[in-house]
């Protein structure tokens, strides 16, 4: 049986792409394939699970399929162009450089280079797998000859049980006030500052007991530091908490304890937190940007802009209109079904197996 190996710049824990890679690797192994994860750089937390990509040269086997998880710049892209094995580009969206430019020219330059990686790899790929139709359009624009849309593997159920201690801690912290939740790395495109500004207005005009937890690790240090300073300037030191490194049970506890997920990201390729919130029956107020409208459907409040008053008013409408939260929660469950996230693992494995069969002279991949 052919090997189906994944290549990713870094394998992070608690990261959307990293968790997707780990889940997909386990699925492929369960299906009987040799499947390793090759990286450009080791992450101390996952180094025992990965192999330097330069070693693939010595481990390559006939019939192998190489899957590149493309979201950030990597030397792997240039190396893959020289390989003769069938290539699948699993595309997770590239955050536009403009988001990073005010914070890190280095990261902005890396994103520019990543767009160049996409442009050079997409035309050579046997298949492009996009996690949303939004991302598929970018793959097609980059010249990918054959594409398919399959959500990420790690959004599939079942949902973990909430951590009881975390639930109790959150209940004590919020003291009965409404809890806003924002989930996403501390990266400029996530616009956590817009959520904090909206909370400031909401506490001033609607409910001074409202609080916010931002769950996500720092992806850009200057931006993360600015968020901390901004919290102080808004007088929200006691009302906004930053959390990272949560277990699945602790994360689920946040979804259970929260009254609303506020997602004002300016660019999303899919939006795993949206799915997690919909599964938890948590209403969502989100900015209609990137793939968010596609992922959220009619199961949340979509805003065209994210000015603080507009967001605060939308949250107030959700939380204070009788029946509104429950209606959105019901719509969320249906939207998760429509997205087909639970079916994504099976589809991913079958799709990759078809690429392997086609490469070995079997039936061609179907669309």
């Amino acid at each position: 049986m052919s090997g189906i190996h994944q290549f990713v710049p870094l394998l992070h824990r608690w990261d959307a792409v990293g968790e997707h890679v780990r889940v997909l690797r386990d699925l492929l192994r369960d299906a009987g394939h040799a499947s390793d994860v090759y990286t450009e750089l080791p992450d101390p937390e996952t180094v025992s699970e990965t192999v330097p990509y330069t070693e693939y040269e010595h481990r390559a086997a006939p019939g192998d399929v190489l899957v590149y998880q493309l979201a950030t710049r990597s030397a792997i892209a240039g190396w893959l162009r020289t390989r003769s094995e069938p290539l699948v580009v699993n595309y997770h969206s590239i955050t536009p450089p403009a988001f990073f430019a005010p914070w890190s020219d280095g990261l902005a330059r890396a994103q520019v280079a990543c767009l160049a990686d996409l442009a050079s790899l997409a035309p050579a790929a046997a298949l492009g797998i996009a996690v949303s139709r939004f991302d598929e359009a970018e793959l097609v624009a980059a010249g990918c000859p054959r594409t398919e849309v399959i959500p990420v593997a790690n959004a599939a159920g079942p949902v973990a049980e909430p951590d009881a201690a975390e639930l109790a801690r959150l209940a004590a912290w919020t003291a009965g006030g409404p809890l806003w939740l924002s989930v996403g790395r501390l990266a400029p495109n996530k616009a956590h500052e817009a959520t904090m500004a909206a909370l400031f207005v909401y506490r001033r005009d609607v409910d001074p007991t409202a609080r916010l937890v931002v769950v996500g690790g720092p992806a850009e240090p200057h931006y993360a530091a600015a968020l901390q300073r901004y919290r102080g300037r808004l007088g929200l030191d006691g009302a906004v908490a930053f959390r990272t490194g949560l277990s699945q049970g602790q994360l689920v506890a946040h979804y259970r304890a929260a009254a609303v997920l506020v997602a004002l990201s300016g660019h999303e390729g899919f939006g795993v937190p949206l799915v997690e919130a919909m599964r938890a029956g948590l209403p969502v107020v989100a900015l209609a940007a990137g793939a968010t409208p596609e992922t959220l459907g009619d199961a949340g409040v979509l805003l065209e802009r994210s000015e603080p008053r507009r967001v605060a008013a939308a949250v107030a409408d959700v939380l204070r209109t009788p029946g509104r939260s429950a209606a959105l929660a019901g719509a969320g469950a249906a939207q998760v079904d429509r997205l087909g996230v639970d079916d994504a693992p099976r589809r991913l494995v079958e799709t990759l197996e078809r690429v392997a069969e086609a490469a070995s002279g079997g039936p061609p991949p179907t669309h």
Partner: protein
Amino acid sequence: MTSAGDQSDDALERLLADGFERLSPRGSPRWITEDAFLRLAETRAATERLLDHVRGMLAALNPSADPELASGLVRIRPWPGLDEASGRPSGQRRRSGRDAALADVADLVAADSRAVIGEVAAALTAMVGGTDARVADLAADTIRVVSSLVARVELLEGRTGIVDELFPVPPGADADTDLSSAAASLASWFTLPEAGGEVVHADVGDGTVLRALVSALDPGRWRVVAGDPRADRAAPACAVDGGEVRLATGAELVAGAGRRSLAGVVLAGCVERVAVADALVLVRGATEALAPGGRLALLVTGNGPLAPAQWSRALEHLGLRDVRVEGAGGDQVSAVTGVAW
């Protein structure tokens, strides 16, 4: 048609948005220095890839290459001093400075980068010619260049003032002082017939002084920019028609203005909430920002680290003229004023 309330809310939203954008480090000495080192690292990586390519070409052309030459090629590591320089304790590179130094830092980095690239190119040319004497020199040269670069950056930083991260608002600093009596006389002090320009007002509080200033000063000739580092304190001032309110510390407001550019600076309270040394840095920055004839006013209660009379001497020491103290003293607000030459 928009109401006064809408305009006030619009001003608040601008304050919130601008307040975050100003926290971006872009353009600060620290940011530029870090970016310069990053660019050096990127260029080094590119140079190393080029060297790998050259090594491969030479090996392919002449598998039995001169062992000494091959050894020299292996030894080449562009800019070996870079790791040490980049890894210095952040305190040695994080102190901020004035904009005037920034272009110098960037120019130095660019110039030194060009010099290093030139050296690498020259060395490669020499090697291909069969001489590897330059190889060892190259390593030493690059160490010297990068060390020199670090020294220059630190020299420039050492000459500049500290601006960022000063003056946090301490807990319990929310109580507003009654400035109503001082505000009117202060505003009238600015209304000279021939005067005009930009007045910066730090620690705007509830907007009492801002309101007095914008009502006394002709908007055709004057612009008043007020700021407060706390949104809950600055928000009420957004309702003052004619004023511009920012989410910013006094230090940031002053640093945002050019040297000798302001018609006036009003520092209300912020000089009393910090250590004397920090307060003096702020006041010195304010005096340097004043245009000739520009006016500085400190609104102090005497409950801070310095009494009004001491502030008066401080302003004279900083080179202001016509320094006066007006006010009842004690717990009442006093205005310590001076004029720039």
